[in-house]
């Protein structure tokens, strides 16, 4: 019957694959409660020993109990080989549990294979390591991503909304959020960066999901003019913004993220302002307003998407691969270089690095396609300030 399947499974694991089958490994592999796994192991041992007397099976047991030691009643939990089981049981004054810990073909010299087996199986099941456990804790809930990074994640998002809307008070909901978020802009950026790292994947998806509705609401507004805010977005925000940009087809916005510098950009509004004063290139984003900006169609979608994973992975990398669409950009960019020269107030070494979002002239923002902020590294001269930059950002 179905119950017997586990016997065959264990048989296969132990004899054919020559594994060390611990109760925890079995529980994860077969998807059963740990206690059931222990009982299965026991059952298997019993049957196997009955049928084939020459079974080459070595079993380790877990014994736990109370023991008087140094004047204290000590609770002892030990993994013992079968031959030492009775000796250990006799040492304990009270036995509180005995069960099979593992089965393997070979005699174990020490307990490191047991540890390794358990370590490996837990490592591959980290997200639900307590799924088959006998204790369930109601309080152990993961923080929801917006909460976990403590609002900074939210600020970039919400900041994006006003930005996309252009005017701060463009829309009710985003507008309301705008002022506080803007204050938190810089902090938000930092936080977003910090948060983005561990949480890029979930955040991105969430962010995108969130952004989409928010942005579409604002899409109608020409956001253009408010580049001032642009600089405060964190990378994560940028990613999310990308997503939102897709729905808001008419314009794509790019945000220039200034990790630490407020770019008092007078918006080269129609232009994408890209600047990255000596900081990680990634953080610099260009904000574009398509409406006004005649040129740039930020095609962040495509490139950004590709870029995104790399951006995400290599947050600290400041140099992105040079994009080959310089030709495209040249046309659009003429106005940009000038405003772009905003330097951070802090005295970074010659920033010289500009990142611009690639004009989406060719790609065009396909509606419905998630756009990711893509940072295009313009082929400008840059000073390889890696050490410095790393130091700075570190």
């Amino acid at each position, binding site marked *: 019957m179905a*119950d017997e399947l586990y016997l065959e499974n264990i048989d296969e694991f132990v004899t054919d694959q020559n594994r060390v089958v611990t109760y*925890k490994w079995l529980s994860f592999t077969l998807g059963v409660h*740990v*206690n*059931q796994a*222990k*009982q299965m192991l*026991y*059952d298997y041992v*019993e049957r196997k020993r009955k049928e084939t007397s020459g079974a080459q099976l070595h079993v380790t047991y*877990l014994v*736990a109990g109370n023991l008087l030691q*140094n004047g*204290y*009643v*000590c*609770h*002892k*939990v*030990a*993994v013992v*080989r079968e031959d*030492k089981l009775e*000796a*250990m049981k006799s040492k304990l004054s*009270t*036995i*509180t*549990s*005995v069960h*099979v810990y593992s089965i393997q073909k070979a005699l174990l010299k*020490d*307990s*490191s294979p*047991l*540890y390794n087996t*358990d*370590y490996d199986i*837990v490592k591959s099941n*980290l997200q*639900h*390591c*307590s799924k*088959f*456990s*006998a*204790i*369930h*804790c*109601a*309080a*152990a*809930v*993961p*923080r929801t991503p917006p909460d*976990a990074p403590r609002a900074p994640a939210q600020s970039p998002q919400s900041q994006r909304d006003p930005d996309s809307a252009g005017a701060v008070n463009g829309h009710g909901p985003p507008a309301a959020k705008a002022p506080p978020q803007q204050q938190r802009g810089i902090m938000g950026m930092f936080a977003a960066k*910090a948060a983005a*790292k*561990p*949480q890029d994947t979930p955040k991105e998806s969430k962010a995108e999901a969130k952004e989409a509705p928010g942005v579409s609401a604002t899409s109608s507004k020409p956001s253009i003019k408010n580049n001032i805010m642009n600089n405060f977005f964190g990378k994560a925000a940028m990613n999310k913004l990308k997503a939102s940009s897709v729905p808001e087809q008419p314009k794509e916005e790019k945000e220039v993220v200034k990790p630490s510098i407020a770019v008092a950009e007078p918006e080269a509004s129609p232009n994408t302002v890209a600047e990255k004063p000596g900081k990680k290139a990634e953080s610099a984003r260009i904000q574009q307003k398509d409406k006004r900006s005649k040129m740039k169609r930020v095609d962040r979608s495509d490139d950004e998407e590709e870029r995104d994973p790399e951006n995400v992975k290599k947050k600290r990398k400041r140099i992105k691969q040079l994009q080959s669409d310089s030709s495209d950009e040249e046309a659009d960019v003429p106005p940009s270089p000038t405003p772009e020269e905003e330097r951070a107030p802090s005295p970074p070494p010659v920033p010289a690095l500009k990142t611009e979002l690639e004009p989406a002239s060719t790609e065009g923002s396909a509606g419905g396609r998630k756009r990711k902020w893509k940072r295009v590294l313009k082929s400008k001269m840059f000073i390889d300030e890696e050490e410095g930059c790393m130091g700075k950002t570190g």
Partner: protein
Amino acid sequence: MFSEQAAPTAQGLLAPPSAEPPTFPRVPVLGYLDCSQPFQLGERSFSRQYAHIYAVRLAGMRPGLERCARSQWGNDIVLRKLSELQAGEKCCVVGTLFKAMQLQPSILQEISEEHNLVPQPPLPKYIQPSDELILEDELQRIKLEGAIDVQRLVTGTILAVYGSEQDDGRFLVEDHCFADLPPPLPWNGPSSDRFVLLASGLGLGSVSGEALLSTQLLVDMVTGQLGAEGEQSCAAHIIRIILAGNLLSQNTQSRDTINKAKYLTKKTQAASVEAVKMLDEILLQLSTSVPVDVMPGEFDPTNYTLPQQPLHRCMLPLASAYTTLHLVTNPYQANLDGVRFLGTSGQNISDIFKYSSMDDYLEILEWTLQAGHISPTAPDTLGCYPFYKSDPFILTECPHVYFCGNAPHFQSKLLQGKEGQRVLLVTVPDFSATQTACLVNLRDLTCQPITFSGFGADNED
């Protein structure tokens, strides 16, 4: 006793698989309040001198000491400052102790060129018979002699001495007293068995892997995977785990990168990186099942001076996703279900151990409680933040559970105070060396050690 009621079903799992095995809900924490705000530093400025901390310490403890002195030696004793002393007059003076030790490592001696000294190697104890005690107050200092145990006391203790000044300028002590136990807190403990697991010195990242299986067994037992059903249901009564420091091993502290040439160390990763990843995984397993408080210790990646600030959550990305993980300061103070916990990761106790003749960690722990100060040797021999407004290490309320981590072995004692204080003193042993953790029962303030073991090549158990 933990899991004694599990005995009847002990062998229950030595049977063929039964029907749906039970799952026990973790007993929730009824009330948790983190009281370590005094130990959390916001903006830190190191521009002040350390004299201020001694000044506020003395000012903060003086009233209590004067009260104790009066109750011990009579209401009519004369309390004098050192500047008001008159030769031969029996009086009581409250001040800070300073122990002049010859062997005390002194940075000035080390760098002094005229001595050309090789830096002294670290010794287990720095006491010598020739040490002297000096009492200092706000303005003056005076040498002490007489009925006072020079070897036992350490610098930084605030005490009251009763005696008289001699002609040679020394103060002859007839008796002395400490601040004694602080006032008791009301008891609101739970009425059913609830356990808190105290463990310290996990020592991840060490070269030897012996303690790894024991650590895994600890995690498994607490998360309810290990043991028979009875034991698992008892483990569900563990409401919290407190990890008291030294999560990383001392091996991760090697500073090769400083001493070796850069081309040799350029691509090497600090040992602590790997160790912290391992710690993250262990904490994740724990956090999915039980609330965890993580205190930093001597070898953990946080600041060196006391009070140590919590580990940063960015180092533990997997585990800090759970609300059950709490990264807390060292020392740590909290109200758990009405029971006040106060403890450190052991640096204060081990520092006193080095400069005092007291050998027993439990004795030292009790002594700090009697002296009314968590760490009197800070900032003299133990790094400390230069407080200037108030000294947060002064004990103002008597905790119910007072522990220190990274002790050589497990000890516990229930101390009864004169004003009805009941304190459970626990020295939490170093897990990487002893594979022992402690279970404190909040209902009756008892403590039981738990030992984990695997089997090694040498076949000993």
